[in-house]
């Protein structure tokens, strides 16, 4: 297991099994958190749009395992998983979903708009692909300040058709900016399959015209994601410019809560769940390799469930924002 060795070599004191268990736990935390969010939505405690990340957990968890403190992360509205993986607190995320003062944006941003300067998470953006130039700008900042940071900029398979993506690619390649464009190809942009939206479906090759290398990755395999992530993060850190990583993944739930998902068959969803689930796949590896027992995995499940239950409790007990908050945070007092 090359990655695990590398981690040891990098003077990480952890044993390989610890690394794998952490990947497992981080993915499971996202899964359970999203299930909880779905329930709270059903109870009317969360309003508006709520886009769940279930099925795609390996992408962010694998990449965050490869990233370093000081790297920056930016994504779209399907963002809860990214927040948790950068280390944001489940309570604060859930309380933002319920629009309470204890939320990361004091309840003013909601599901699609959260930020944490502390963990390097730069949102949380509702306009498809708008985060791509922004992420490119974060990378510009890393290079300008020479802080060795890299920006991980996430976008969907639908977002890749927006013009501003290519304007960004050109600048990033031209100026060799330290940015990893992670295309989370979950096969659909809302109800439109990649085939119906994209003339070329090899999304990792979208940087070809700018000389940006591209790699297609099994985004359901967290170890593969981590391995590829390490390689290209190092590449970007060395000043060699951007890369496009196309993560082949899948979203289990509807686009948002009100999507009846009639554009795909139930069999399609259950097949991925049964054969490629990122969490089940890793669990099997852990059990087969005798790196964990059924009981120790259950124990992890209990731990993350507790976190999610507490987050859900907090998200209901935290008070609504003070009415005066309506008029704050519009401009910085100068």
């Amino acid at each position, binding site marked *: 297991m090359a990655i695990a060795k590398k981690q040891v070599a990098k003077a990480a004191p952890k044993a390989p099994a610890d690394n794998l268990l952490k990947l497992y736990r981080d993915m499971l935390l996202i899964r359970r958190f999203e*299930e909880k969010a*779905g*329930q709270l*939505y*059903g*109870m*009317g405690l969360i*309003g*508006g*749009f709520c886009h769940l990340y279930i099925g795609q957990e390996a992408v962010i968890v694998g990449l965050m395992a490869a990233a370093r403190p000081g790297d920056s992360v930016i994504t779209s509205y399907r963002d809860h998983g990214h927040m948790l993986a950068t280390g944001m607190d489940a309570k604060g995320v859930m309380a*933002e979903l319920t*629009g*309470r003062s204890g939320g990361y*944006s*004091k*309840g*003013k*941003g*909601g*599901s*699609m*708009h959260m930020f944490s300067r502390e963990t390097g998470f730069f949102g949380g*953006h*509702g*306009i*498809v*692909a708008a985060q791509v130039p922004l992420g490119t700008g974060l990378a510009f900042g890393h290079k300008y300040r020479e802080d060795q940071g890299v920006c991980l900029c996430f976008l969907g398979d*639908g*977002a890749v*058709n*927006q*013009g501003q993506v290519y304007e960004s690619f050109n600048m990033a390649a031209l100026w060799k900016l330290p940015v990893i464009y992670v295309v989370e190809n979950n096969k659909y*942009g*809302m*109800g*439109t399959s990649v085939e*119906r*939206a*994209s003339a070329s479906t090899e999304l990792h090759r979208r940087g070809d015209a700018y000389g940006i290398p591209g790699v297609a990755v099994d985004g359901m395999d967290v170890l593969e994601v981590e391995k590829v992530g390490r390689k290209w993060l190092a590449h970007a850190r060395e000043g060699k410019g951007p890369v496009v990583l196309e993560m082949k993944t899948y979203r289990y739930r*509807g686009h948002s*809560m*009100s999507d*009846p998902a*009639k*554009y795909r068959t139930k069999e399609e969803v259950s097949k991925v*769940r049964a054969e490629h689930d990122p969490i089940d796949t890793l669990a099997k590896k852990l059990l087969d390799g005798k790196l964990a027992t059924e009981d120790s995995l259950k124990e992890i499940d209990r731990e993350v469930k507790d976190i999610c239950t507490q987050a859900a409790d907090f998200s209901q007990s935290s008070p*609504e*924002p003070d*009415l005066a*908050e*309506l*008029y704050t945070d*519009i401009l910085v007092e100068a």
Partner: protein
Amino acid sequence: MPIQILMPALSPTMTEGKLSRWLKAEGDAIKSGDVLAEIETDKATMEMEAADDGILGRILVPGGAEGVKVNTPIGLILTEGEDKSALDKVTSPSQAQAQTPAAAPAASVAAPAPQAPVAQPILQKSYNGPTKRQTVREALRDAMAEEMRNDPNVFLMGEEVGQYQGAYKVSQGLLDEFGPKRVIDTPITEMGFAGLGVGAAFGGLKPIVEFMTFNFSMQAIDQIVNSAAKTLYMSGGQQRCSIVFRGPNGAASRVAAQHSQCYASWYAHCPGLKVVAPWSGEDAKGLLKAAIRDPNPVIVLENEMLYGQSFEVPDDPDFTVPIGLAKIERAGASVTITAFSRMVGMALETAELLAKEGIEAEVINLRSLRPLDTATIVESVKKTNRLVTLEEGWPYAGIGAEISAVVMDQAFDWLDAPVMRVTGEDVPMPYAANLEKLALPDVAKIAAAVRAVCYRGQK
């Protein structure tokens, strides 16, 4: 204790729904993720998944029940180790309600779905033909279908307008009738397809470009303003651009700052564009048809919250609402209220309330924001001597600011009080429920403004 299965909310606007059918029977083992039942929301039929493992112990609300309120217990799950006797221990008050659903549905079917109380619009005098009761959503769809039947150059383009039948189901059935040549699903590329539409219009076609919501038109605003609006002028009158940009505008529900704002003032600002904002089904159908026939670029600002509201709608393929004319929805002598889109309903509601205080408000449904029917507004103000403007958007350089200037200019001597504007607050839209409510106009704010211009104290 058995776990209660609660009626879920499956869309931002859902308060109740139909429990279409159960896919599990009492006694069936269930696993988290299994589909338990099908629920019909205001938009679609959705599947409801189990969140827990166990056995479906009891069904509390049978399949077919309509008007089931969100959060009503609809079933009970026995968890590991529990037997049936546990079911009888569950006695919550809400459950008692839910347990007699067999009789309940009939009653709730008969009662009309709850709606904002609205006065029926007075149909234009010129129209005496047949009408039918339709939702705004259906009226918009029929407007497009009729014009597409009429003119082979009209086509519809946008995200999810075809196979998905419209993100808000406005284009339902159009792909079936007109085929993929004329009902075109685009990639998510607003600037690209808006510009492509403008080019197609230069070439003589008549595109209807749908923005999934107007928030996304900001991606394309350069093509709308610089290419669609200005080319006739720049070409000395040679190059026309007959195109419609339409979609839901304004605040929806709890979708936060990037997904809820009003573009009325943005587009009405620009010479070379026409801008309309329908409220009723009649407005929606008549204005959209007029927009499609118009030889100019027309922005049609719809509203998601109105899509499900029903009105009497003219049922005649020749019916249109002329762009540039307002409509007096309610006559009154005490004060004039101008409004457009969803705010018309709110103005009418306020007018009914104020009538009880002896204030008779004249409510003008602007319908068209550019050109603005200044004649109707000025005439009304000359009669009432008082004006309150109402809009959901921001106050700064808003539609109300424009109307105030017009009235200063043309009816200054008739005013008995300064014009008052009721608008959305001057802030990005917050997500939190309590703040969102505060950010938008409501009946109380409108009533307070009306009382103020009438120099009446708070009732």
